[in-house]
């Protein structure tokens, strides 16, 4: 039998527990009380180690501003976690694993602190990147809600051993060279009638973010400064779109890329000769296959007629302060600490990831690291010109459309490259019109 007094006691206990939990979220107060900030970091092992080290150091140096580090709650993607947290009002003070393409959505929802309100924002940004580069991270309302923290410029890794065996001295630079080499690097090694070595491999499933590492990387390399979408309008270069669609169409039509799904990395396994990768692949190879794979790294291929500078997709991650923070000024101080010269060096040393710094390649602080890791210097040199996705709130839907058109034209040859480019621009225009 449940007496009312028992039920009341249970309710009171629940209320006390709930109150206790909510009070525990951020200890703060006036008059010299300790401010506690919550910092969400990525869940990968190296970044957790880096964050633990940096937070420990900060907490020792700043007894009045203590930071509590938490790994991002487990989910399919950081974006899903952040959307849920924004909706529930449970965002941390700072997060360092933000995809720039999602920032406009959060900013539109009023979930982010405008960083250009801080007096030293401009000087901090100028020290890290050029005005032109920063423009790509500014929201359409002209404000800045993110600090670009790190980048993983995409380059082409190639298997030197396979190239040597095929009698190819140098890796390809243009689409024609790539396709010519592909004919010699796609073969049936054990002569069982089934091709088991290919020039490259891309996941053919229409998954929007997969297109960052094929279509968009090659688009960035060939289109210079023309983003896909800017200021609410479609600005993509249809000629470049057609060339990129056409290049991949040749790869799939000739069987240089398999239409399959590998549960393992086919480059590591020696089944494909080239792959478009970020510096994470180098760290992975060094950690797990040191000395076992003879590889080289070069910029991604470009159309034969291309004469501009080298560029690529940057795969940046940014830091933001959420508007639920009760201590944005203190959060800004901590954010600056996370991107200072020493912290950036530790990012290189601990996580082998490239900090967004305009002096990264030649600054004395980083020279010895790059002397010991020449592969990463190649990625760092690409970082200076690497592009990011646009600052439209519809980036995911735009990339889903790219994925659909890529599949139609490049993978299944259902449209010509020119038709695909025209369809892409039209469909993106329709998305922008619907979401406006």
């Amino acid at each position: 039998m449940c007496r009312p007094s028992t039920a009341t006691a249970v309710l009171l206990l629940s209320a006390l527990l709930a109150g206790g939990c909510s009070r525990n979220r951020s200890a703060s107060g006036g008059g010299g009380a300790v401010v506690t900030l919550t910092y969400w970091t990525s869940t990968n092992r190296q970044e957790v180690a880096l964050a633990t080290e940096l937070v420990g150091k900060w907490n020792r140096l700043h007894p009045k501003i203590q930071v509590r580090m938490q790994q991002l709650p487990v989910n399919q993607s950081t974006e899903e976690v952040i959307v849920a947290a924004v909706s529930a009002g449970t965002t941390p003070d700072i997060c360092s694993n933000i995809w720039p393409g999602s920032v406009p959505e959060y900013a539109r929802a009023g979930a982010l602190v405008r960083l250009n309100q801080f007096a030293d924002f401009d000087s901090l940004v100028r020290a890290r990147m050029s005005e032109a580069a920063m423009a790509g991270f500014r929201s359409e309302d002209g404000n800045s809600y993110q600090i670009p923290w790190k980048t993983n410029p995409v380059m082409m890794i190639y298997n030197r051993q396979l190239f040597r065996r095929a009698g190819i001295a140098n890796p390809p630079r243009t689409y024609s060279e790539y396709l010519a080499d592909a004919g010699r690097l796609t073969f049936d090694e054990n002569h069982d009638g089934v091709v088991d070595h290919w020039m490259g491999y891309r996941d053919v499933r229409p998954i929007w973010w997969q297109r960052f590492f094929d279509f968009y990387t090659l688009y960035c390399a060939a289109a210079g400064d023309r983003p896909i979408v800017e200021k609410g309008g479609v600005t993509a270069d249809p000629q470049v779109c057609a060339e990129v669609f056409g290049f991949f169409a040749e790869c799939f039509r000739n069987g240089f890329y398999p239409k399959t799904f590998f549960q393992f990395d086919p480059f590591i396994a020696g089944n494909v000769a080239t792959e478009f990768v970020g510096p994470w692949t180098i760290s992975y190879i060094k950690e797990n296959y040191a000395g076992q794979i003879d590889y080289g790294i070069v910029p991604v291929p470009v159309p034969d007629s291309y004469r501009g500078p080298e560029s690529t997709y940057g795969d940046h991650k940014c830091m933001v302060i959420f508007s639920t923070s009760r201590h944005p000024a203190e959060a800004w101080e901590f954010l600056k600490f996370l991107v200072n010269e020493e912290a950036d060096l530790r990012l290189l040393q601990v996580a082998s990831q490239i900090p967004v710094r305009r002096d990264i390649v030649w600054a004395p602080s980083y020279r010895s690291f790059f002397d010991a890791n020449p592969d990463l210097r190649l990625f760092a040199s690409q970082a200076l010109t690497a592009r990011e996705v646009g600052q439209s709130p519809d980036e995911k839907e735009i990339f889903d459309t790219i994925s659909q058109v890529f599949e139609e034209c490049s993978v299944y040859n259902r449209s010509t490259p020119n038709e695909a480019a025209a369809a892409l621009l039209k469909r993106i225009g329709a998305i922008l019109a619907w979401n406006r």
Partner: protein
Amino acid sequence: MMLRARSHGWLLSSPYLVYAAVFVVFPLAFSLYLVFHRWDGMAAPVFVGLGNLARLVQDPLFYRSILNTLEFLVIHIPLQIVFALLFAVALNSITWLRGFFRAVYFMPVVVSGVVVTILWQQLYSYDNGVLNTILTHLGLGRVPWVTSPALAMPSIALMATWKNVGLYTVMFLVGLQDIPAEMHEAARIDGATAVKRFLRITVPLLRPTMTLVVVLSTINGFSLFVEPYVMTGGGPLNSTLSTVLYIYNQGFYFGHLGYGAALGFVFALIILVVVLIQRKALESA
């Protein structure tokens, strides 16, 4: 005294009432509210009237996803029923290791759908899959199981049948055991062959089970999600884009929760109509 008894009644049923209010009534009411709003899950919802429904009517991908789901059902349900019935009859007649075989057939049902899909991805892989390796060793050509727009959905239906057939086999087994043995006995004495007994006694007497199996597998089939999500992402060329996957993409990938809610409501109505027609047809057959 009566008042006290009534309050105890409310107290005892309160866990269910709270559950229903939080997990059924509120989500349903909120979804209905979202049908008329644009909402990204973060900013305040914006009223758009019938805008989401107007978009839905003109959305070719929604119609495509409905057709894909129906294609899945048309292949999956008959396969499911035929194999489940065959397995049930076989399992009902064996006496040797009966428990073992029943467990074996039921095992895929309890394995996670994601795990099953990843395993089948390895079987179906075009260039290095187990099935195509066997076919090429037999001197036959490779089959583009999930990379051909024409074959991808049938391949998924085949995999889903393998995964779920155990559950429906158990249902048919229960139905078979309810059929009195004397009826078969009498028919046998009268000279009816095994096939005749199966068609004239077993199948008609299994009709209630059949109705249950058809309705359950229709509802489960309409909720097709894990298999295309993991295996094909809805491709190739949207040929495996199920309606639930499309709703998920709109709601959770692209942040169109209002449009996702509109799609969900219309889809629920379609399921209701199909199940009602199915029940009517099966009961009058």
